């Protein structure tokens, strides 16, 4: 993880890294050029969250975004997609909310196999390092998510993501 927090010289954007750190955990890291309280606000105010959680390139858009961001509060994100009549809902519960520092929530749309997501916000000078952990209940649950081809973002029914997977596999020289 030598590239943690480094910026990508071609785009000027900070690099996002992902690592499978154990048989049931994935860790995503990214730095932001802003104080932790502002980055935290963008994760906890629904009207701000809606503006980045489903970027245009995904081909999906929010139909509704409810998030009661406090310990025990629930969230429910519903998305629509041009190629699918059925909206998709993602929902769960916030387990821990520590302002400007830490968020923990469950992902309940897949029943018991869902991951618990922990996000920490660590201020480093003018930057904030965001570390996101997806901890699955078992190795089988994470392997299952990988085998299904869904990246936990918008499910395998969404063609755009499928295309992304195909492109990625092809570029990695998969037969």
């Amino acid at each position, binding site marked *: 993880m030598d590239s943690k927090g480094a910026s990508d010289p071609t785009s000027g954007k900070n690099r996002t890294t*992902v690592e499978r750190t154990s048989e049931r955990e994935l860790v995503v890291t*990214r730095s932001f050029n802003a104080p932790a309280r502002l980055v935290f606000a963008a994760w906890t105010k629904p009207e701000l969250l809606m503006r980045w959680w489903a970027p245009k390139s995904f081909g999906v858009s929010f139909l509704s975004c409810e998030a009661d961001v406090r310990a025990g509060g629930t969230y429910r994100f519903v998305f629509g997609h041009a190629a699918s009549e059925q909206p998709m809902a993602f929902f769960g519960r916030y387990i821990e909310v520590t302002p400007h520092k830490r968020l923990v929530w469950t992902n309940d749309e897949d029943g018991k196999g869902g991951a618990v997501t922990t996000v920490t916000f660590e201020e480093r000078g003018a930057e904030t390092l965001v570390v996101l952990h997806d901890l699955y209940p078992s190795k089988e649950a994470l392997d299952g998510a990988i085998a299904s081809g869904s990246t936990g973002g918008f499910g395998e029914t969404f063609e755009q993501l499928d295309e992304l997977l195909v492109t990625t596999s092809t570029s990695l020289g998969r037969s």
Partner: protein
Amino acid sequence: MVQYTTARLDDSFAALSDATRRGVLEQLGRADASITELAEKFHMTLTGMKKHVGVLEQAGLVATEKVGRVRTCKLGPRRLAEETAWIEAYRQLWASRFDALDKVVEELKQKETVDGLKRSE
């Protein structure tokens, strides 16, 4: 291309339809092992384990290598390539989210600066 993929999936599903073979994959996910070790672990004969490993190898899920008299088994190239591809797709998902988040945060920062200036006026 489509047919080829279907054939591959058939092989994979056939290989994964058996509990012992799923157990073998799980075991190899932790560490490489010889056929003898796997046979002992799953209380099977060598011949029985060889058959299971053969099916997994056929499906590209397991790779084996014979050194001297010992055949060592490890996770196959397809399994690893799929995981690598999935992780890269997952990374791209978060990278595009975070690029969008950059813009939101930048706006908040500017708004705060403007509000701060107003307050100090």
